[in-house]
């Protein structure tokens, strides 16, 4: 009897131990962020991914930054004033930007910030200019070119051009632009505009700042960039350690010029398995986590957590038509002819084909079922939150009858008569793109039994190969803003040399001219007219079908305070800017 009672008591203790999740604050002076994004590099001139950006954003600082949650208002940071035409720090022709540099700011190594550090930071970035990096955003406004090398890898600029673009004048740093560039300030406010310590960099083997040596430091091998795994910024946190693929730890910088942060330490952990990440969150071993969209229901109604919903992302996903599909070895176009067993390479060059697809997409169902209503239907290539978006722009909608009407007209009636067959590829694991592709498949096939679409997943490396070789028929892909300006969307979506449009062989000379004019136009009203016109042409030409602009969520334990959202911050919906955050 005694043994039975003892056993019951022990069981009761064990069962009552199961509280479900922790209520007390664990690690009160340390914020733990559990995410999935792996860091590419901690070098601000190298890093172009959001995971790296999230760390760099809190270790380094820029000349100006965004005011609170705004993307079009700035505050001075390492500069003492935000340049404007009104205060005379931007020349009336928009070609010169002057930044008075703040005094008394310390780097993490104790050195004091000087204008020479600022000059060096930008010149260094342009010297490094690695393949596929972010520095083209400095090259375009300052030198009027895409980068330091041509497509064959030969250096095509002189150091003098870099040297003259950024200069120290007393306590100021002056930028000389090749042509007016309205989003220049917003570019400088992002992580590729981070200010580094020249002494620290040179001490660790970086470019010494001389004309004779610059080519040696151009386009380094991955991992060889000086600030790959070390850091010395002026930000509120300094790098404690980075274990690639595992975690990044930053510690409070007590000599931060705006006063020490409240948190003593921040740890970003990479936890790829969703259930593990969720359990850590509920147990209090993670304070903020990334929650993939398919799993948001698992945290609905859970006590002890705080959720911010419907945060507008600066992203846009669309289905792009390939106007001139590469037929070489391309099984995805079937017979390669309009004979019911394939499609010809120029199938999508017919506007009625594109319109048929545009009217076949059921946005209401897609946005509700896939995103549970947490996504917006885009009106064109400029998402909500970006200037000059025309909310009244006419747009396509789900209308099978209209779709049918256009398919009947397409290719002089042959499409309807013969039918077609092709494959849409998507990259494995991307559920949103898969469902969008299947929606096209289902809705288009329902119009005519001779219409056959196959949807197939492939690994990212294969998808990339097919995209680069222009073999994709219709590709669904998304764009995340580099900076908050319409140019950063219309160029990739519509310019003949744009990141997407180049792979779909879409070329409208009027569009190219408008985009090139729009980026150089300072007058806001004139600029607005250009982008409105571009949105109209987008609707008219329908080079792609804009599918969704995702709304995001932020999840934190209720003892976390001080977080706020800015869509342009790297991983802004996860941890954003750490300085004001604390736990209580």
């Amino acid at each position, binding site marked *: 009897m005694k043994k039975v009672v003892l056993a019951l008591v022990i069981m009761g203790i064990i069962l009552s131990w199961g509280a479900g999740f922790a209520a007390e604050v664990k690690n009160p002076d340390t914020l733990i962020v559990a995410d999935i994004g792996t860091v590419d590099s901690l070098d601000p001139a190298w890093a172009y991914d959001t995971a790296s950006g999230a760390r760099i954003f809190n270790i380094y600082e820029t000349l100006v930054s965004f005011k609170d949650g705004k993307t079009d208002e700035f505050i001075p940071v390492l500069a003492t004033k935000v340049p404007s035409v009104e205060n005379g720090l931007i020349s009336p022709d928009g070609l010169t930007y002057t930044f008075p540099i703040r005094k008394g700011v310390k780097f993490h190594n104790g050195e004091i910030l000087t204008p020479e550090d600022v000059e060096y930071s930008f010149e260094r970035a342009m010297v490094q200019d690695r393949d596929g990096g972010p520095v083209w955003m400095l090259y375009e406004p300052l030198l009027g070119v895409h*980068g330091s090398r041509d497509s064959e890898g030969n250096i095509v600029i002189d150091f003098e051009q870099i040297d003259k673009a950024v200069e120290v004048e007393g306590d100021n740093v002056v930028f000389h632009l090749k042509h007016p560039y309205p989003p220049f300030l917003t570019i400088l406010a992002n992580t590729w505009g981070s200010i580094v310590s020249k002494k620290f960099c040179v001490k660790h083997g970086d470019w010494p700042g001389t004309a004779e040596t610059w080519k040696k430091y151009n386009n380094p091998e991955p991992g060889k960039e000086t600030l790959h795994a070390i850091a010395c910024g002026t930000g509120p946190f300094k790098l404690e350690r980075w274990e690639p693929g595992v975690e990044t730890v930053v510690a409070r910088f007590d000599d931060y010029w705006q006063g020490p942060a409240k948190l003593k330490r921040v740890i970003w952990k990479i936890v790829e398995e969703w259930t593990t990440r969720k359990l*850590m969150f509920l147990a209090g*071993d993670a304070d903020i986590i990334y929650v993939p969209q398919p799993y948001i229901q698992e945290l609905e109604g859970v006590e002890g957590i705080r959720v911010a919903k419907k945060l507008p992302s600066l992203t846009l996903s669309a289905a792009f038509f390939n106007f001139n599909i590469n037929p070489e070895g391309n099984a995805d176009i079937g017979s390669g002819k309009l004979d019911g067993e394939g499609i010809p390479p120029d199938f999508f060059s017919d506007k009625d084909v594109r319109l048929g697809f545009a009217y076949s997409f059921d946005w209401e169902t897609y946005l509700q079922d896939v995103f549970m209503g947490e996504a917006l239907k885009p009106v064109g290539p400029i998402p909500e939150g970006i200037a000059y978006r025309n909310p009244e722009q006419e747009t396509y909608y789900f209308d099978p009858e209209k779709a049918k009407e256009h398919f009947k007209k397409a290719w002089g009636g042959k499409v309807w008569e013969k039918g077609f067959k092709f494959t849409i590829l998507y990259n494995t694991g991307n559920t949103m793109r898969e469902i969008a592709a299947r929606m096209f498949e289902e809705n288009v096939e329902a119009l005519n039994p001779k219409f056959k679409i196959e949807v197939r997943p492939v690994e990212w490396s294969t998808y*990339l190969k097919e995209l680069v070789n222009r073999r994709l028929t219709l590709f669904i892909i998304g764009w995340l803003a580099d900076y908050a300006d319409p140019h950063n969307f219309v160029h990739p979506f519509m310019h003949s040399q744009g990141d997407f449009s180049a792979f779909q062989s879409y070329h409208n000379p009027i569009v190219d001219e408008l985009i090139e004019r729009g980026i150089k136009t300072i007058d806001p009203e004139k600029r607005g007219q250009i982008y409105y016109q571009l949105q109209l042409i987008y609707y008219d030409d329908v080079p792609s079908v804009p599918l969704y602009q995702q709304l995001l969520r932020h999840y934190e334990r209720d003892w976390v305070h001080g977080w706020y959202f800015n869509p342009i911050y790297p991983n802004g919906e996860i941890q954003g800017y750490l300085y004001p955050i604390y736990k209580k």
Partner: protein
Amino acid sequence: MLNYIIRRLLLIIPVLIGVSVIIFLILSLFSPEQRAAVFVTDIKQLRDIQGVIAKHGLDAPIYVQYFRWISEVLKGNLGWSKTAERPVLEAFFYFFPTTLELGLFSAPLIILIGIYLGGTAAVHQDKFVDHASRVFAIVGWSLPSFWLGLVLLMVFYGYFSGLFPPESLGVKASLVVKSGDFTRFTGINTIDALLNGKLWIFVDALRHLVLPVATLTIIDCAMVMRIMRSSMLEVLGKGYIITARAKGADEKTVIKKHARKNAMIPVITVSGYLFAMLMSGVVITETIFNRKGLGWWWARAAIQLDIPAVLGAVLFNGILFVITNLIVDLLYAYFDPRVRLG
């Protein structure tokens, strides 16, 4: 004996050449754009993809790429792993201790529990112990490791408020271990904690090991148990066992001295394979419990076509299997005097 061992170890060279050639032949099926994918993770980088291909020599003939790689390997340079963001060799020494620690704690349990249960089941054939062991074996072997791992995590970490957490160490222990006040002798948290005299870190590391070790043990000891049982049943039917009993030896002596040792040969084979498998990383267990070891790294490397890392994995596993097979053969000779080496 020594000559035999040396001859077997020298086999490593042709094995490594063979497997690396096979891998490069497989690689030749991938286009330069596919192989560049590991460096181009975002659409925005695509405009420079030709530069990436040229820079890394991905469009050179495959035999040129192979000889380039071999010449670097002979200099001790296994290349840069993009998935690990480190040189391959450095990444290996970084991730290996995590895998080794898991293997060192799991392997003995898997083997010893498997041998004990298998032997006991055989001795008590068709009795309750035998039936229970076989059910355990079937269930254990059938359970997917990701499912078992997640269930254990949900119960012992989720429900029981963090009793046995995932990862390798808690936050406090991790900060101490990675600070300058702690010496990393081996990279294995449990061993280093003891060597640094930090018992609380040792306990913390053990707590974090319980669930992944339990997962691996439940699933893998089933295989050892089944093989031990079959082998033991076969041995128990042999003439010398009957003779031993007839000569008056007690049952305990018959089982321990005569039966078990002779039943071990097939168990040694499977144990060797098991150990090698554990040492080369158990990707699912490592992912579920967020313990970043070799399995986790190499799985990502394979998916992302991180060729230097994949080749590093091939080299390591080639060496591992040659050495494991050698140890197994040496153990054969120990357990069975009839076996002659060489």
